[in-house]
């Protein structure tokens, strides 16, 4: 009687919500999509494609290096390949994939219906896609960059790198950084102002904390790389400025300072979201509250601050004043504390929980093994005298693949298995999953462990070949075999995804008994995420009795209305209507893309970019009726 009536009302209401929040269909519709789940998925899928491309490039490099004096690739080709490998992995894979996870998960975790600026979000994705296509389009115009992923001048300058490759690289950075900055802005506002009522600062899930800190780091670090690449490098190349030209008072080291002022935070920008994923998975799979939540949050924040104080450790061999050196050694080593505290807290949680050894937890264990090893070699190279030997050798290559792959990719793969049922409504196959884990784990160590010895044995990085008799043959061969093994692991992983997407076991909303709000939404979530927005009163809402959940009433269902809460205590503050789908972000990107592409040829194209961009933005913000509810 009564209950059937309420059920009917509820159905009607979810129908209306669906009408309001559904994303447009069709080709044109797909260009206008602004939903965070759709865009998050696009980020993730695009980034994985770039991982495959970057991985393919890695395989080519490894094949070339398998034997001494190999002639599989000529030197010019090799230089292009390692440059695009590094660039793709850092700018087109690692950062965007983390952004994608954040865009998908954060609104679910904080209990709202979309990110704060949905159109900006769409714009960010288009800019990212444009940047990636722009770089790879260089393949067809003999314009691939070949000066390394940090493109030091004078080598990357007009005199020693003629051609358009480096210009393409520099402007690709502009695209991807604009995208990262958009995501950072909207995630910060989403996390700070759109949390479920009751989700005070100390009830924010760890993953959201990590995205928050990461986003702030992006805001303060990414401008530096835009200055380095598109102001200093590009203008020196195209219009004859003298930022790095010593003959006219410029300085090549200036570029290095500015680049690494970004470059060091960049590696933590990649790494922090991964830490957030690890925290989420450990909490779920050890079935206990995460030990030391305040310490973990503090460690993340401290990591964010400290990361801006150690860029010089990439420049130890340039010959700096000694006082500076002591400071930068100290700072670089101290950052080990923030990682250490997190490792200790996780170990404590794992030791006292009741583990469920899923594939995801396998990846977490793999993460701890590999990342700690890579972190320790990081502490080794933070010691200047030792770094003078290790710098620019395969020891550093080993270090950063340990921390990047171990510290970011393994958690990402784990997270992918963990949230896959949320993304698709189906579970991934555990047997295949564990199988891919072991192949990846063994292949990874086989590839990169020998590189430590190569580095100490004198092999510099970025060499396209080496002579026989240096003692480098065997480790190089092992590394190549390892890389092929990783590829096999990758194929198993892909096969698992493809299979599970269609035939995987159906997942209910909370298959792992996770604690945070995303597990209360349906799997996959409806376009509106939650039929009624939730309110929470602790850090583990999904571990409470869901039927007793406080829900929010009074938001309109016929427009995209959400609740803005106060920054600190997350008290309801006012209602806010989010914009509808729009094609303008795409159009704007198109305009900017044309202008920025032209700018590698002549500076005046910036004016084209500005004009087309302005047209795009005006179209974007032009009021449409009914006026109250547009954006």
């Amino acid at each position: 009687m009564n209950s059937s009536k309420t059920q009917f009302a509820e159905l009607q209401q979810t129908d209306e919500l669906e009408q309001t929040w559904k994303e447009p269909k069709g080709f044109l519709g797909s260009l206008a999509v602004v939903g965070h789940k759709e865009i998050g998925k696009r980020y993730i899928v695009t980034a994985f494609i770039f991982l495959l491309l970057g991985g393919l490039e890695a395989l080519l490099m490894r094949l070339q290096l398998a034997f001494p004096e190999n002639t599989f690739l000529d030197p010019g080709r090799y230089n292009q390949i390692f440059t695009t490998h590094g660039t793709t992995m850092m700018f087109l894979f690692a950062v965007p994939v983390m952004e994608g996870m954040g865009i998908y998960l954060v609104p679910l975790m904080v209990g709202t219906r979309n990110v704060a600026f949905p159109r900006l979000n769409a714009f960010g994705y288009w800019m990212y896609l444009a940047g990636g296509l722009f770089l790879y389009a260089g393949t067809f115009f003999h314009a691939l960059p070949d000066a390394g992923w940090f493109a030091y001048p004078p080598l990357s300058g007009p005199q020693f790198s003629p051609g358009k490759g480096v210009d393409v690289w520099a402007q690709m950075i502009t695209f991807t950084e604009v995208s990262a900055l958009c995501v950072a802005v909207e995630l910060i506002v989403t996390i700070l102002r759109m949390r479920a009522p009751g989700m005070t600062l100390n009830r924010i899930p760890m993953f959201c904390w990590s995205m928050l800190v990461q986003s702030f780091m992006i805001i303060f670090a990414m401008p530096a790389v835009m200055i380095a690449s598109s102001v200093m490098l590009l203008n020196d190349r195209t219009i004859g400025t003298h930022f790095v030209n010593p003959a006219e008072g410029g300085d090549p080291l200036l570029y290095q300072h500015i680049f690494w002022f970004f470059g060091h935070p960049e590696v933590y920008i990649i790494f922090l979201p991964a830490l957030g994923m690890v925290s989420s998975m450990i909490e779920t799979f050890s079935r206990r509250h995460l030990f030391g939540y305040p310490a973990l949050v503090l460690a993340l924040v401290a990591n964010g601050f400290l990361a801006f104080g150690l860029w010089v450790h990439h420049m130890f061999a340039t010959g700096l004043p000694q006082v500076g050196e002591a400071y930068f050694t100290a700072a670089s080593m101290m950052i080990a504390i923030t990682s250490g505290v997190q490792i200790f807290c996780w170990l404590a949680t794992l030791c006292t929980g009741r583990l469920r050894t899923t594939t995801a937890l396998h990846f977490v264990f793999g993460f701890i093994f590999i990342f700690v090893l890579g972190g320790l070699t990081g502490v080794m190279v933070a010691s200047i005298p030792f770094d003078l030997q290790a710098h620019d050798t395969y020891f550093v290559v080993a270090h950063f693949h340990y921390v990047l792959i171990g510290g970011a990719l393994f958690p990402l793969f784990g997270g992918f298995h963990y949230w896959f049922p949320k993304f698709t409504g189906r579970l991934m196959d555990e047997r295949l999953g564990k199988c891919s884990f072991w192949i990846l784990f063994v292949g990874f160590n086989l590839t990169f462990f020998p590189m430590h010895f190569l580095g100490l044995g004198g092999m510099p990085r970025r060499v396209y070949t080496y002579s026989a008799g240096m003692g480098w043959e065997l480790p190089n061969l092992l590394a190549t075999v390892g890389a092929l093994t990783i590829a096999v692991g990758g194929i198993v992983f892909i096969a698992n995804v493809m299979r599970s997407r269609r035939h995987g076991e159906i997942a209910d909303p909370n298959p792992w008994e996770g604690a945070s709000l995303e597990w209360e939404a349906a799997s996959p979530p409806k376009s509106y995420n939650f039929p009624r927005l939730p309110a929470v009163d602790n850090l583990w809402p999904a571990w409470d009795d869901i039927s007793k959940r406080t829900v929010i009433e009074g938001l309109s269902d016929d427009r995209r209305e959400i609740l803005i809460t106060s920054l600190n205590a997350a008290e309801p503050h006012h209602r806010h209507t989010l914009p509808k789908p729009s094609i303008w972000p795409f159009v704007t990107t198109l305009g900017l893309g044309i202008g920025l592409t032209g700018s590698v040829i002549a500076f005046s194209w910036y004016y084209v970019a500005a004009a087309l961009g302005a047209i795009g933005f005006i179209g974007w913000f032009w009021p449409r009726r009914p006026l109250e509810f547009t954006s």
Partner: protein
Amino acid sequence: MRRCTLPFLFFLANIAFGQQSALDPAGPQAGRIRSLESLLFGISVVIFVGVIGTLAVALFRRRRGIQQEPLESTHRPSAQTERKLLVVVSSLSAVSLLILFALIVVSVVTGREISIKSLPRDSLVVEVTGNQWWWSVRYLDDNTQRIIVTANEIHIPTGRPVVIKGTSHDVIHSFWVPNLHGKRDLIPSRVNTEWIQADRPGRFRGQCAEFCGLQHAHMAFWVIAEPPAQFEAWRRQQLQPAAEPSDPVRLRGQQVFLNNACVLCHTIQGTTAAGQNGPDLTHFGSRQTIAAGTLPNTIGNLGGWITDPQTVKPGNHMPQVPLAPGDEQPLLAYLEGLK
């Protein structure tokens, strides 16, 4: 834990005694860095084993199951356990902090010891200039008559400190002889100084460590440490201008050299060849390699190099100079005779 222990040990030995290895120090700086490395390595191993051991414990405890604690309902172990964890975690963090302090102190002290400020008196000063993709070497002396210019090979006396003043002529390179010292970047418009010393005679390979373009891989050089007397002998010989060819074939070779494009780029003291774009060839015959360590210096290799430098070292800045038929052999003989 460590798979493939055997091969690792095998190539470890292989690498450690290779021609170019930071694991086999031959001078005070490399030695100090090697000890620092052992310390860092030892500490890292201990920490790593500790972490992995704890992980193993976590797995093991899972097998046993910890029914004693009411985890299922509250998701929280007993308050007592939490307190214990707090103590353990904070003391581990404190210990880490102490270890890091110690490492900072040791690093800074080692850094002082190997820095240019710790330079003993009576040193030899060598100016090294990086070029795409070869090294120009000048032995400085107050007496300008006694300045030696050579390339891709640095002779040093054992037991005596040698100051390296490094700079670059084009892009950034990095001077690195792992057996003697860490690396130092050679940056255009800047001069970076460091000092090295070999404690025993030997040949130590060095290689450019900063990516510098197409032939970064083939930008090596050799440091040859000899007892002081032998070094002096070498120096005396290098101070001489190039030997005048005595036999007609070599004389002919000299003419070939002087009448072709070679003079535009190469210097041979005592002749009119004074080009600056390529390595000084005054005593080329006494050097052990061709083209920055790319090939051993034999007459066959030299022939290959001169007839087709772009195949030997693709992209390098020496063009293929067309020679009249019959000119090649005399030229080679002449160059090899430049002892």
